[in-house]
């Protein structure tokens, strides 16, 4: 049994917002695969919960009229991976979240929970970063949209106001058009693993596949929050598709990342991996776009 003072259940977004206002201290629980663990560990023991697990209106993936891809915040990892729109427009996200824990965790864990939890190791985060995802929050004042880079405020801290819940993760058309990406999760085993570091790279190539028109690199566990390798991206936008570029990216990212020493891995090792993974993910992204290295 979980040490919980009370549980309030919402069936709609409106109900959820109302409950948020009535119980400002209560913790939102979606799939619970982070919240319940914290309750058990004692960190959240004795808390009140607002369960949004039953809010079906924010489940599922849709293409909006302007071409924006909308992923409802309650969509589970397994449903993201299986979704045809995801497979078509942002396959790498489906692959990335298919690396979360194991199948049962992917059945319960939601993308909303993964982002709102605010941890740098979240498997969806580096890809969402690298694809300029927009976080949609709905509250008493209506809907607010925040670029994901701004959504992360610090380790475990995200930009959710009182009364709000996250209702969607949006990928604009300009972001996914003609773009392919690859995610590498570095772990100590092949399943049931929290990323030691994660690197998601996507590219858009020139029509002749010789030039990298746009390069975007996202990292998890390379800093206290998921980050973009902006300096590297600037340097290599418009670079030729070549091994030299791959090697260059590999070196350049060291200027962008800032991992920590911890018992899970040393800073040096993480730096080494960040560099190697950028290279490999870049090469694979280019290949997916039809380029050759």
């Amino acid at each position: 049994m979980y040490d919980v003072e009370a549980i309030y259940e919402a069936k709609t977004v409106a109900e959820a917002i109302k409950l948020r206002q009535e119980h400002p201290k209560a913790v939102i629980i979606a799939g619970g695969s982070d919240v319940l663990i914290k309750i058990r560990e004692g960190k959240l023991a004795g808390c009140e919960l607002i369960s949004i697990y039953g809010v079906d209106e924010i489940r599922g993936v849709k293409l909006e009229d302007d071409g924006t891809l909308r992923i409802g915040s309650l969509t589970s990892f397994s449903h993201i991976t299986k979704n045809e729109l995801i497979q078509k427009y942002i396959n790498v996200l489906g692959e990335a979240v298919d690396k979360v824990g194991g199948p049962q965790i992917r059945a319960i864990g939601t993308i909303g929970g993964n982002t709102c939890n605010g941890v740098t190791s979240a498997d969806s985060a580096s890809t969402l970063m690298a694809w300029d995802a927009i976080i949609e929050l709905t509250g008493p004042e209506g809907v607010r949209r925040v670029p994901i880079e701004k959504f992360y405020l610090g380790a475990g801290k995200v930009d959710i106001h009182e009364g709000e819940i996250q209702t969607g993760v949006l990928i604009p058309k300009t972001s996914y058009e003609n773009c392919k990406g690859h995610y590498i999760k570095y772990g100590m085993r092949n399943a049931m693993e929290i990323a030691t570091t994660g690197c998601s790279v996507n590219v858009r190539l020139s029509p002749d596949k010789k030039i990298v028109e746009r390069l975007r690199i996202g990292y998890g566990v390379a800093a206290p929050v998921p980050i973009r390798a902006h300096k590297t991206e600037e340097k290599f936008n418009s670079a030729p598709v070549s091994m030299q570029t791959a090697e260059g990216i590999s070196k350049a990212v060291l200027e962008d990342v800032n991992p920590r020493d911890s018992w899970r891995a040393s800073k040096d090792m993480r730096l080494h991996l960040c560099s190697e993974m950028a290279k490999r993910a870049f090469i694979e992204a280019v290949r997916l776009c039809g380029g050759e290295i």
Partner: protein
Amino acid sequence: MIVGKSYARVDAYDKASGRTKYTEDLCDRHALVAKIKHSNVAHAIVKSVDISEAEKVPGVVKVLTCFDAPDCLFPTAGHPWSTEESHQDICDRNVLTKHVRYYGDDVAAVIAEDDIAANRAIKLIKVEYEVLPFVLDAQEAMKDGAPQLHEKYKNNVLAHTQIKKGNYEEAIKEPGLIKVEGWYETPTVQHCHIENAICYAWEDNGRIYVTASTQIPHITKRCIAQALGVEWGKIRLFKPYIGGGFGNKQDALYEPLCAWLTTQVGGRLVKLDCQREETFANNRVRHAIRYHIISWLRDDGTLAARKVECFSNQGAYASHGHSICAKGLGSFNQLYPCENFEGDGWTIFTNRQVAGAMRGYGMPQAVFAVEAHTEDICTKLNLDPIEYRRKTVMPVGYVDAFSKNELYSDTFNQCLDKGIKYIDFERKRKEYANQTGDVRRGIGVSLLWYNTAVWPIALETSSCRMVMNQDGSIQVQVGETEIGQGADTAYTQMAAETLGLPFEKVHVVSCQDTDVTPFGTGAYASRQTYTAGMGVRGCAEAFKQHILEVAYRYTRMQPYLMDIKDGNIVRTTDGRVLMTLGELATKTLYDREHNEHLTMEKTTQIKSNAYSFGCCFAEVEVDIPMCQVKLLNIINVHDAGILINPALAEAQVHGGMSMGIGFALSEKMLYDEKTGKLLNGNLLDYKLSTMMDHPHLEAQFVENAEPTSAYGTKGLGEPPVCPVSSAIRNAILNATGVAFNELPIRPHLMYEKFSQAGLF
């Protein structure tokens, strides 16, 4: 023949249908719940415990502290007791302690109506400590001035033993010898049985009843009595099906505490259910052992002299103590005999959690050290690793002076040949000779030798009872427990074989009840088929003789003219079936003249034991820049004598290999140097292999019947773990040229070593 056939497990149907009851499934759901207050310091004296806030939590029934606990020191090891004091296990524990010796030691307990109330109360207990300095490393703990854990053990040395043969100092003077020296280190790992340790206790008619997930019911019963300072007969212990043990449950864990707690609440039912985090932080672990090996070799690789030192990290309490270190130390000069040998083994207390028995009992550590070292010798002297091993390993006819165990057949060569053929060793070794590039492959080998059971170091005994039903079927009871390894099925086959019954007519009573089950010490030391095998056969032979004597009354045939075949009394001279066993059992049970219930009970003492042999071959692919190893192929070949049940034997080997793979590549308990706290005590941070981390596991056998064994078998439970880590390590050496002398070879270590070797 019933022995030698792959019958489905006798418990398979129930386990497959989900109706098998394990400890928690049997416990009344209204039981009171006990939780333990673990220390958050590694070494301290408890000054006071304030329970006033904890007692106020609604639902709390009782809060008890180390100041309430009985002043009885007790041992926990799953060893047979000894009537000689010098051989007795060390008594160094209290159910709750005033002297905290590791981070997580047990200082108080709460009994409550549910787990939420208990957990809330635990948090509110305030403990005042006089904090002492602590030490985590074994060799540091031996130094003068290091923090002392137990008064009686100076420099924290629990025990030091020495083995000497020939004259090492003289032998190394031989001119032209080549010296190969290395330090080898193994990690602290945990058993990770999927069912956590759990027990519940209550009082009944002035006695304390305990149901526990244990491998050793009769021993745990004794430990509980010692802990509570009550007569041993006051305790009755039940052991239902258990969800794995691997040695952790070959120790009295929290059964003594739970038994004491019930006495503090008027004998009400109290459940003490270890959480996974507690299984990691507060149960037993495998001893981390550091080895120092110096070998002096002639050009051709023959050993002129060898010296071995082992430093075994015992953690806070004695538990199984020095026997693990000593077992490993004793193996060096048996696996590769050397005329001039010196070995020193130390077991040292440190402020870490307690090391106890774990599958392999010191041998996975020792085999890693000696087989890594053997490979280092081959590398340095440029010798073929297979030929070298064939030449220097324990020869056929070898007899150990102490145990009188013997190597009867050419088993090492037979095992090696099978492994070489399966994995295509020679070809791949050549193919992988001169690789460059980021991703390289390698192949490696390791031998294995294992001394099963515990004679002559300790008592070996097995008692068996057989009781016949009216239909001629029997119940069989032994104290050697089913813990998942398939022992009950093996006993069924053995009893059926010797008594002449069909397999289906033998019912093994799986649950041990110390009031009812004849005395036997439990499941450990890979001794079940060998030791309990003799117990079963001893009882079955006597029972058969007795049955034939009773049959004489009804058939008027001399017992020596009869036999039991397939459940019938048969006249051997012409093969005629005289009566069925069912007819005999019914007749005699209801016979108004000569009434008798057909039963037999017999204790068999065993004064022999057997060596078990094998080898492992592993093939790996190393991604150097990514610091990752992929295991491509692996095979274990074992000579465990005659296989009672080949399918179950194969399954045993798979499980052992899996544990060996984790030991080699991923499993390690990490401790915070600043506090002594375990950092990764859960199944997410502790890297047990998942199905995605294994290749196909190949298990093959060589069946050389063991002459001393009731059914030709030798042990197989533990050996499969032992050779795996060294085979993988040697394969990585073959691939990269980097010799890893520490386990596990996880990415962190690879990063460090590959950097040093300039491979990036």
